[in-house]
């Protein structure tokens, strides 16, 4: 019997564990090295715990609106310990699931930190104190990322300043929270704590929140969040963080004028940086740009047989991208040929309502000089949305003027993050407006509004007047 190819995967996040499983499926002897907890950022301190917290927040909000629907409840606040316990239970169940799946796929797990000592040799500082040398036919790096600390005076070492990880395990919702950064993480945690009664202020240096998302719908979302009492400042730069009693005092430059804000906690959510320092990439000769590993579309690094995927590339930092790249790297490592293409990549923001987009935004279409048209449909004209959230939100389709091909779909509304699946498939299959229109959309659903947005593009929407 021929010897199996040996594959080492560094990192057990959604990039690494998926690569390990896919590698095992394709017949490799797989070893996975993880220095912390299986599941990585995503399962332990990222996607999953934020969404668990947001789910509790959503129930909290729903309680407050129950009377409108004729459901009588006396809201009695929350039991924060139980909120965290439920979140922890979900995380543990999923981490347990991943552990079980790795075992079922006969992946060998080493608990420890890997560093390169040569092109294909690793030294593992194990949790049990021992050091092990490891070498494999193929290596996939999936080392992920950690919160970036911005060079703002007074942030580092300040106990009032927390990162997203700490924000997911606070002892109690703070009475006030200032969020530095209006990206996805900042907006989601702002949404969650706002529901738990925290006074939230978001400070974003750029003129626009959520850089990946369509600007028009982002503006609508901003208005909705402000209506809920979240204060949002854009074009606003945090100058420094100081102390005032047991609170943080945050100096903000608001287009030239300085303003001070007091907050019990300051969430620093300005981005994430790759966690590649410990890897000693240079010893292997792996090309990187200040810690961001460079790869081609096959996820190959500059060193033969070494691949890299996910957040440690410092490009699109999303769990499903890490997983998609993980499958691709494993396939290429095992002699298949697959390339990565981000065109069907959905971006989701778990605000209330949810926000999701795929393909080009109006901003990116303009930037690329594409001749595009827009179909817009407001959700107040959609029966299901009206029932679900009073009809708040809208759907927007961008299409190419020449062939009517779908360039982008953007959804702000209930269930947006799941409805975007249709949009991604439409873009993947190079569908045109006609094909979306010819697909029957069930009544009463929010997806009907996707079809209506396509109809609106052709000035023949049924449930709104066509301008």
């Amino acid at each position: 019997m021929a010897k199996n190819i040996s594959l080492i995967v560094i990192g057990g996040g959604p990039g690494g564990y998926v690569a390990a499983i896919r590698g095992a499926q394709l017949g490799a002897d797989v070893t996975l090295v993880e220095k912390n907890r299986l599941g990585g950022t995503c399962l332990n301190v990222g996607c999953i715990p934020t969404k668990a917290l947001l789910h509790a927040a959503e129930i909290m909000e729903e309680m407050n609106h129950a009377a409108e629907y004729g459901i009588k409840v006396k809201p009695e606040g929350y039991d924060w310990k139980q909120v965290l316990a439920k979140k922890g239970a979900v995380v543990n169940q999923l981490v347990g699931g991943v552990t079980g799946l790795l075992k079922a796929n006969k992946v060998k797990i080493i608990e420890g930190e890997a560093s390169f000592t040569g092109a294909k040799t690793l030294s593992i500082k194990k949790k049990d104190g021992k050091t092990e040398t490891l070498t494999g036919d193929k290596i996939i790096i999936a080392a992920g990322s950690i919160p970036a600390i911005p060079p703002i005076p007074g942030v580092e070492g300040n106990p009032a300043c927390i990162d997203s990880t700490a924000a997911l395990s606070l002892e109690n919702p703070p009475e006030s929270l200032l969020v530095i950064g209006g990206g996805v993480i900042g907006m989601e945690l702002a949404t969650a704590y706002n529901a738990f009664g925290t006074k939230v202020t978001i400070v974003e240096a750029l003129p626009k929140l959520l850089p990946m998302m369509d600007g028009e719908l982002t503006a609508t979302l901003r208005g909705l969040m402000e209506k809920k009492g979240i204060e949002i400042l854009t074009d606003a730069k945090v100058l420094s963080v100081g102390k005032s009693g047991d609170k943080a005092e945050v100096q903000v430059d608001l287009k030239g004028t300085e303003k001070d804000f007091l907050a019990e906690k300051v969430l620093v959510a300005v981005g994430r940086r790759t966690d590649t320092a410990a890897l000693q990439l240079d010893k292997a000769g792996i090309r990187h740009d200040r810690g961001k590993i460079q790869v081609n579309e096959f996820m190959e690094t500059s060193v033969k047989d070494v691949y890299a995927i996910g957040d440690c590339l410092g490009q699109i930092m999303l769990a499903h991208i890490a997983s998609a790249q993980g499958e691709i790297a494993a396939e290429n490592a095992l002699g298949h040929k697959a390339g990565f293409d981000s065109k069907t990549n959905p971006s989701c923001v778990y605000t209330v309502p949810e926000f999701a987009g795929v393909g080009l935004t109006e901003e990116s279409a303009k930037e690329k000089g594409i001749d595009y048209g827009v179909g817009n449909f407001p959700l107040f004209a959609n029966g299901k949305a009206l029932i679900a959230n009073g009809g708040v939100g809208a759907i927007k389709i961008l299409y190419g003027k020449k062939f009517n091909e779908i360039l982008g779909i953007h959804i702000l509304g209930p269930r947006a993050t799941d409805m975007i699946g249709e949009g991604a498939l439409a873009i993947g299959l190079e569908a045109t407006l006609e094909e979306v229109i010819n697909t029957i959309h069930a009544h009463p659903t929010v997806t009907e509004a996707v079809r209506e947005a396509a109809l609106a593009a052709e000035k023949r929407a049924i449930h709104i007047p066509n301008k």
Partner: protein
Amino acid sequence: AAVAVTATGRVRISPLARKTATKMGIDYTNVKGSGPAGRIVQKDILTAAQ
């Protein structure tokens, strides 16, 4: 229905139609598409095969 070949020379064809054409050994570049926006669907390949 419009011709399935776009101005860029690409053929608009459904995945199923493409697989069917490949399996039956049919050149689909000149098949007329009857799907939305002139896309070639499996039915067109089966018709062309007759």
